[in-house]
């Protein structure tokens, strides 16, 4: 049992860190709109609470710094202090110092606050109009800001992971019990197993729910980051955040934190133009960056859009040719999505040419891998001169995946829903043999289609992916999967249902075969293979080229 002091301290720190994040957000707003009274009032309120709380609990350094900042902001509110560049710099430093102090309340080695900074604060507070006194430049010790998520969850994630795994196991057994009960036809067993079904369902959602956090806990760190990166790049950026209250598994949020940080930095550094350049192009001086979260059933869609210069597809194609990823003739014929998928090739986006002209700095492949690892999808759209949008489709929770079950040549397979685009039934006549593949038209879009049986089971030397005579029957069930901006239609023998599955990793020596993301046990105890769409897509492409 925690003592009341410990409880107070935890509450104090959690709340203080929240205030700190909010302060960062508001001061970034204030920098752009110094006359925004509402923002000023909010900053004032936050500092006021921070001062009162830290004084009550006895963290006097925090209350001292908050008091100085509060005074400075009240002077600004009363127009007694101008919100000048020098003043802004000191205030930002002061807020940073608050953050440091809050994060280190438990650290006995935490030294005194930087005296130069304290002096600077005193100067702006006390020497109101006397501009002759010099503000000393503060040596910033925390130039590389680390992102750390709020520690408001007071349970080790590891424990929740373990619970989640146990629930997964439980659900496998539950499904077996239900299928056995169906076979036996015993009413009592049927009623018990349906009760068991509901309880495990509830249990699963409870455990999943315990791991959910607001996306805002990550989003709210960005106003300050954007401000800092923009200042360093001499750009003017307006960041719009929406969907902060959407919830997502804390581990997923952790995994994408670096990716998102990376994409945001890139968007400012390479995507958005400098103010003068924007004006010349007839755009507003201030670049617009939008970070948006939306949720639909089991996925969360994160979108990062900028209205910058966009990506020059020609340049990407040229680089691809130079890097011998594709021949010149083929490159010329590639469409937008095919071209953009080169950006996710290892090391590609670090190429100098791409950075300079089309502007998407380092290591998009790294970002893609991070998203892939949690079964997410990363796509991008771009329009030259208009901007770029990155979309990350993420599962809300990791352990249980929605999947589509089907059969090919007597074997059960599953494909995670996150990779399925749509399911269609087409007449054989709607498939056309073009070159060595089949293609079809889906609502105006040309999609390559492959008979999965042929791709998986034909001897490699005798594989005929473009041969319609290998198909069985007239009507073809097609699952359209999508990866890396590429769509691929997979013809399957029998389509079953959509189901939540728990993916079990393959054990040695099969774990190195990347065509399979794992296996799942069906209610019948049968093993169902979970196809890895990225690997399948790669295999298909290699087959075609080979």
């Amino acid at each position, binding site marked *: 049992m925690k003592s009341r002091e410990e409880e107070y301290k935890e509450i104090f720190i959690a709340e203080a860190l929240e205030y700190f994040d909010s302060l960062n957000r508001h001061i970034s707003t204030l920098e752009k709109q110094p006359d925004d009274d509402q923002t000023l009032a909010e900053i004032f309120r936050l500092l006021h609470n921070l001062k009162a709380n830290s004084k009550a609990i006895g963290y006097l350094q925090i209350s001292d710094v908050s008091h100085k900042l509060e005074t400075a902001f009240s002077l600004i509110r009363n127009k007694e202090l101008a919100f000048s560049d020098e003043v802004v710099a000191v205030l930002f430093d002061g807020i940073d110092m608050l953050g440091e102090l809050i994060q280190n309340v438990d650290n006995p080695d935490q030294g005194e606050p930087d005296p130069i900074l304290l002096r600077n604060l005193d100067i702006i507070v006390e020497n109101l109009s006397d501009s002759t006194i010099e503000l000393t430049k503060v040596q910033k010790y925390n130039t590389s800001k680390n992102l750390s998520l709020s520690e408001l969850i007071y349970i080790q994630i590891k424990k929740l992971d373990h619970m989640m795994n146990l629930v997964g*196991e439980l659900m*496998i057994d539950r499904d077996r019990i239900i299928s056995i009960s169906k076979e036996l036809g015993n009413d009592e067993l049927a009623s018990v197993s349906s009760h068991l079904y509901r309880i495990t369902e509830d249990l699963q959602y409870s455990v999943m729910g315990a791991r959910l956090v607001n996306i805002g806990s990550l989003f709210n760190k960005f106003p300050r980051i954007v401000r800092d990166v923009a200042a360093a790049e001499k750009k003017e950026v307006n960041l719009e955040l929406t969907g902060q209250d959407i919830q997502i598994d804390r581990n997923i949020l952790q995994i994408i934190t670096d990716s998102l940080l990376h994409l945001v930095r890139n968007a400012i550094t390479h995507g958005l133009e400098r103010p003068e350049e924007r004006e010349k192009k007839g755009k507003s001086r201030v670049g617009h960056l939008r970070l948006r979260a939306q949720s639909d059933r089991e996925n969360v869609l994160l979108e990062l859009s900028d209205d910058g210069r966009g990506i020059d597809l020609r340049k990407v194609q040229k680089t691809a040719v130079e890097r011998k990823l594709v021949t010149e003739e083929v490159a010329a014929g590639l469409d937008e999505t095919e071209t953009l998928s080169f950006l996710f090739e290892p090391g590609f986006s670090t190429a100098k040419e791409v950075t300079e002209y089309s502007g998407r700095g380092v290591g998009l492949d790294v970002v893609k891998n991070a998203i892939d690892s949690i079964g997410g999808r990363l796509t991008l759209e771009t329009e030259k001169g208009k901007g770029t949008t990155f979309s990350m489709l993420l599962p809300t929770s990791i352990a249980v995946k929605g999947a589509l079950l089907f059969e090919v040549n007597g*074997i*059960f397979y599953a494909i995670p829903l996150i990779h399925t685009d749509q399911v269609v039934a087409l007449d054989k006549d709607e498939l056309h043999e073009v070159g060595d593949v089949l293609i079809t038209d889906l609502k105006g879009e040309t999609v390559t289609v492959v008979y999965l049986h042929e791709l*998986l*089971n034909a001897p490699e030397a005798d594989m005929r992916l473009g041969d319609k005579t290998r198909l069985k029957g007239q009507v073809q069930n097609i699952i359209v999967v999508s990866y890396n901006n590429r769509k691929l239609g997979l013809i399957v023998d029998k389509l079953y249902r959509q189901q939540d599955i728990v993916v*079990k990793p*393959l*054990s*040695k*020596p*099969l774990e*190195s*075969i*990347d*065509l*399979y993301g794992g*296996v799942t*046990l069906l209610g019948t*105890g*049968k*093993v*169902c*293979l979970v196809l890895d769409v990225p*690997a*399948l897509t*790669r*295999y298909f492409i*290699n087959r075609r080229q080979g």
Partner: protein
Amino acid sequence: MAKQTKNTSSDKDQAEGKPAVAEPGENGQTTVAPAPQKDEMVHLIVFKLGAEYYAIKIEQVKEVTITPAITRMPRTPGFIKGVTNIRGDIIAIMDLETRFQIRPASLPPDANPNVTYTLVIEAKDYSIGVEVREMPQSLNLPVSRIDRAPSFLQDINIQENFIEGIAKIEDRLIIVLDMHRILSQEEINQLPNA
């Protein structure tokens, strides 16, 4: 534990002056020969591959079971029959006939062609199944009955260090396999990728 037994047998061979097959250097213990123990017994699980009898020491076998439904895994090497569910564990099933290019022999008339057996082999951190067509037998015999016979090995496709020895029982020859060596071989640990 299995390793200990194995060493004892090969040391034994050396102690009795039989032509010893050189073991790879990683196993330094084999050269240290303890005193021979004439009455030491070894417990083997004997099964047929092709027309010949093979065996695995019982220490390396976790269980023998009727093979449950196997799910084939396309685009894996031919000797991987697929995966199966043994009490919630998903394990790979290996076909040693394919692996060692042994021509399958016809089944005896009394065998049920629809039933096969799986020896679940326990490797260091995982299990793997070996599928055989006839019911495996259990056999106890003195360690001294297992010989090294390199000349025998020339005709078959099994690398010699996969073979721990040859047991001679009446008119039968039984090839004793070292599953740990077979499983630690790179070929299986680095399956080709799509």
